[in-house]
């Protein structure tokens, strides 16, 4: 289901540097917090910049507050990290579709790479509430880039960690670790494209349903600019295609990550086109 977003003022209520270059900021923004569903994101207007809104996934949400967990990439994330208490922040959200849940009693494996952990706090909370047996496999380049572990464990999730350099948990990729687990009823993935692609291929080959939260460069964050599209299987329910152009032999259509996603079924994504 696609969200009904709104434009809301947000008040900064907490700021924590969770790792070098990684921040967790808390905001009071009642309506957005209340509507947040797993995989929803917000689009933030940074005061004092001349940029389009910054899209960031919603990490935790409780009552009338939510948190964002992000890395300092460039202009906007750096600016957000040092936003002052009294600066007004305008936020649009929640945006995007959401993960769908399996039935009670099923098993889910979540595969997250680095900051790709963000959509999974809300998802884990839902899964556990729905009595889905859930394992989170969290990978990162090294210990210092592994964020969110404590919060997920605090929800009661079974969290396995790994790093490329072995500085924390197993020395492996998240997918390696996930492959060692008993095949689940559903996979969820978020993180760097190579990880998502490998996960998709693994799930597709094993015939396991798999939902991927994708990322692209956004312009409008609202579905109007067509800047954020990904190629998906032609005729997929999420595709925004032109069915009449039937003379063409192409197998793909485009979907907008910002409003048709961010969540897509791994079978629909055409990594190879």
């Amino acid at each position: 289901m696609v969200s009904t977003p709104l434009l809301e003022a947000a008040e900064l209520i907490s700021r924590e540097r969770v790792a070098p270059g990684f921040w967790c900021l808390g905001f009071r923004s009642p309506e957005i917090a209340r509507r947040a569903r797993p995989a929803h994101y917000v689009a933030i207007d940074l005061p004092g910049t001349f940029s389009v809104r910054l899209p960031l996934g919603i990490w935790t949400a409780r009552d009338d507050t939510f948190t964002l967990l992000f890395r300092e990439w460039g202009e906007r994330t750096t600016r957000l990290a040092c936003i002052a208490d009294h600066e007004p922040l305008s936020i649009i959200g929640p945006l995007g579709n959401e993960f769908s849940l399996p039935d009670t009693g099923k098993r889910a494996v979540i595969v997250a790479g680095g900051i790709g952990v963000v959509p999974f706090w809300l998802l884990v909370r839902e899964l556990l509430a729905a009595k889905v047996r859930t394992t989170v496999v969290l990978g990162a380049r090294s210990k210092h880039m592994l964020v969110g572990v404590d919060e997920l464990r605090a929800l009661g999730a079974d969290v396995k960690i790994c790093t490329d350099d072995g500085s924390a948990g197993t020395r492996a990729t998240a997918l390696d670790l996930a492959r060692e687990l008993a095949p689940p009823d559903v996979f969820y993935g978020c993180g760097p494209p190579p990880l998502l692609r490998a996960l998709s291929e693994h799930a597709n080959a094993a015939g396991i349903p798999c939902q991927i939260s994708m990322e692209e460069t956004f312009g409008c964050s609202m579905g109007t600019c067509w800047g954020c599209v990904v190629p998906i299987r032609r005729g997929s329910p999420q595709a925004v295609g032109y069915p009449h152009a039937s003379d063409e032999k192409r197998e793909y259509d485009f979907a907008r990550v910002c409003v048709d996603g961010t969540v897509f079924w791994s079978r629909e994504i055409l990594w190879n086109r």
Partner: protein
Amino acid sequence: MMGAGDDDALDLSVELGSLRLRNPIIAASGCYNRGAEFGRIMDVAAYGAVTLKSVTREPRLGNEMPRLLSTPGGLLNAIGLQGPGIAYFLEHEAPKLAAVPSAVIASVAGFSVAEFAEVASRMDGIPGIVAIELDVSCPNVDAEGACFAEDPASTAAVVEAVKARVTKVPVIAKLTPNVSDIKPVARAAEAAGADALSLINSLRGMSVDVDRARPWLANRSGGLTGPAIRPVGVYHVWEAATAVKIPIIGMGGIETGRDALEYLMAGATAISIGTANFRDPLAPLHVGETIAAELRKRSFTRVRSLTGMANPGFAGARA
């Protein structure tokens, strides 16, 4: 939310040829469409008119990813005119236009004079479409790929061909800033019968992804828009306003009411907001309020009094 035109004492209406808009604030092509998306969080009626994404004859899938990049003060885009083509547009999109709470300006793009004429004529008279804008910034395949809008004669050819077949609504020629001198192009469009000009379209630019040693955008180069290009837009509007009598829709980097006033005073009759929607969807409301405040401050009653105020060479009709 209150539209900018609701203030009783002030006349914010403007005329673009035979078209009258209730206020001079327009959504730019490719950045807002008919408001279906942004209308979820703001009032589309804040716009005096909205401009649709440019429509071509054939469906187009557009460019590969990535299509967008943030740059200092700007946005680089290479969407590649993704769109369903005129047939699909007429069947599925056009029927929705009557419900849009603002005037709707259609936009046509093409790769030959004939394509422009055909697509524009099929738009003419569609209920809800009050004007047709010609996005002449595409390469002209009849002329070895040079861009129409970079050449006065090609621009005139498009406008002339369209004017020969479009009779019910005004035709707006949208010009590119990628020229040494915009005046000859503006004059050629006017002489060919354009009822108004829109400027500027995006500025050509590119960026290299240093880690991968290749262009950031899949299409290599793209169009630069947003506040970074505002001085370039104001300059071209100022120049064009000294060369033609037809009204000008000014755009390029407008975010605030003061930005809009720069364009109006330079010589624009109306202004368009593009990229700023991606940051502040309430921009048209704020712009409307600031324009109204400026009129009150100057004891003006009509927004048209601002047009060309700062430009001693302004050649247009001040109405």
